[in-house]
């Protein structure tokens, strides 16, 4: 009772947010969790009596489904290659944009941020032209260096790299802004002191910028990793998972099962599997970073 008296006002203030969260977040997530133990499918859509509780069968089927492993492999490929590349690109661009010698800083910051706010569907049309095997700009440039034309989106070896390049271009601006904020919070005296000690640019970067940015970097890495695990819209608009499932991501697989075949139960079990994977990787990342700090 005392507790409520003490925090009553606080509860009142957060009540609207909690209510919204409850109905639009917790309830659906809980319903989905229950659904992952049923065989909710097209028959269930016709008549709810056709739903059966099947325990862990969805998860069992999932583990034995080769397509799931293909999707997981593709997603990991995207996360492991695309994630670090994206962070490196954002950091480099942030340093360039924040550099003292750079001119028109705001202008460039805006330019680099534009891909983030453009819609993926419009952008994909442009990128499809860029990647076109015969008339695309990229192959045209490669031709200049006498490299054979590459069928970027039609070849199963090149489709994923093509998606990675596009995803990095699309997303690096967001992380760049966060890095710029991080860079600006580093006190100028540190650099001045280093300068007096005769440190060169690389030493300044390695001994001042990197450690001072570590908190920002952890944040960016985790956010990027989580975002990249949910790879969906790029392959959905560019390749539909093809060729030969080489760009099929976990979320795309989930979408296909859910909305193409309407096997909702199975589809939801994929979602929870992905949740477990992301959760585990995030925990690992946090632990690893902490260890490094000690």
């Amino acid at each position: 009772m005392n507790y409520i008296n003490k925090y009553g006002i606080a509860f009142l203030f957060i009540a609207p947010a909690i209510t919204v969260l409850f109905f639009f977040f917790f309830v659906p997530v809980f319903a989905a969790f229950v659904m992952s133990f049923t065989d909710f499918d097209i028959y269930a859509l016709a008549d709810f009596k056709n739903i059966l509780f099947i325990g862990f069968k969805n998860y069992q089927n999932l583990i034995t489904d080769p397509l799931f492993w293909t999707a997981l492999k593709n997603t990991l490929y995207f996360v492991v290659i695309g994630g670090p590349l994206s962070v490196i690109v954002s950091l480099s661009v942030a340093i360039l944009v924040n550099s003292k010698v750079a001119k028109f800083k705001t202008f460039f910051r805006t330019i680099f941020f534009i891909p983030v706010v453009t819609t993926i569907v419009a952008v994909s049309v442009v990128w499809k032209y860029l990647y076109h095997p015969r008339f695309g700009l990229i192959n045209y440039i490669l031709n200049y260096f006498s490299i054979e034309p590459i069928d970027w989106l039609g070849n199963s070896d090149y489709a994923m790299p093509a998606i990675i390049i596009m995803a990095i271009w699309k997303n690096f601006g967001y992380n760049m802004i966060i890095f710029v904020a991080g860079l600006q919070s580093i006190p100028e005296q540190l650099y001045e002191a280093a300068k007096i000690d005769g440190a060169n640019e690389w030493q300044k970067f390695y001994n001042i910028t990197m450690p001072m940015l570590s908190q920002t970097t952890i944040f960016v890495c985790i956010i990027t990793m989580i975002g990249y695990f949910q790879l969906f819209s790029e392959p959905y608009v560019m390749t539909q998972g093809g060729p030969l499932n080489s760009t099929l991501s976990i979320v795309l697989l989930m979408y296909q099962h859910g909305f193409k075949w309407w096997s909702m139960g199975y589809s939801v079990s994929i979602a929870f599997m992905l949740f477990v994977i992301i959760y585990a990787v995030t925990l690992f990342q946090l632990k690893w970073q902490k260890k490094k700090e000690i």
Partner: protein
Amino acid sequence: MKIILQIFFSVAIFLSFNCNHSSDEVSTIKFWGFGAEGEKVKLLIEQFEKENPSIKVKVQQIPWTSAHEKLLTAFAGNSLPDVCQLGNTWIPEFVTLKSLENLNSLLLKSSIKEENYFSGIFETNKIDSGLYGLPWYIDTRVLFYRKDLFDSIGWKSPPKNWDELKRVSILLKNKYPKSYPIFLPANEWNPQIIFGMQNGSSFLKNNNSFGNFSEEKYKTAFSFYKYFYENNLSPVGMSQVSNVYQAFTEGFIMMYITGPWNIGEFQKRIPQDKQHIWMTAAMPSTDSIYPGASLAGGSSLVLFKSSKNKIASWKLIEFLTSKKQQLKFYTQTGNLPSNRDAWNDSILINNIYTKAFRLQLENLISTPKVPEWENIAMKVQKSGEAVSVKQSSITEILFNLDNDVNRILEKRRSLLIKNKK
């Protein structure tokens, strides 16, 4: 304040009366069409609206790639249109969902007769004696072949049966060792299924609740399919043929099993001075009856149960399946009419390429009518890929295929048992 309110209400009442009045006269129906069909149908609909001033039709065009998802989502969200174009392999699914109107009684009262349609294609719209759609256009597969290359080895006519198909392939391969006589794309399920149909396979058994691919009839057909890969008569993998039309013109591939839309494409993409090199032929058979079976594909027009304007909607379906409109639709899209009368028109009779299709239409077989078919077809396609790269023996591949299919049909079995009780 009071006066303002009074004015407001009287205006509101006046407006609402007006609205009611106008909607009594004109009934609006929603029609969904897919891809090019959805675009081209608008011209026909204009004519329909002119003939029926009391009916307004709202056409919504949906890309084929998202059509299926869109329909299921619309069903779940209770926002289906009145009339829709529906790929006829999807009909069982929507009948299972109990969302399609049974058209039996409407057909009885109508001037349209079942005999107006080709039986194979009409059959795809029937589930347990109930009629759930009317065929709009037919999409079947025939053999497109290089006439000039056939001539060069002394074959004056296309292969009529499986033996001839094998023989002509070998002869072509001997004469043009660097080329491939036939193109069976491993990312399609159609060729295997068509061969299976020709050999009388039922694909599924026990009331369509188990896979039946290991059975002798399908096995023979599958071995026939394998024969072309085994003897290097069909290119393996898709990368060798990046552009079918180019490969066909160059003679890299000489036979290709494909559908009516490619008549237009072949006419457009093969250079004008080389148009004489190609021809179409009905599918070969396993016995002396020519042609052999092919897929009864295509789209039907369906009426959804949720529709509030069923009479007007049925009128639209009748209109679109009439001879005159079917011919107009054919000239605009190249889609083959489902109406027999339309085929007696000179436009179709005089077209040398559609002749093979006309012949083929008499022997069409539909794929098993289960909602799971699309999913099963994906597995069939995978088995084709496996045999093309010689991963394992036919027995093993078909055993795995049956296993996969049985898993897909698990729910269907449990429901069949439940319904019996």
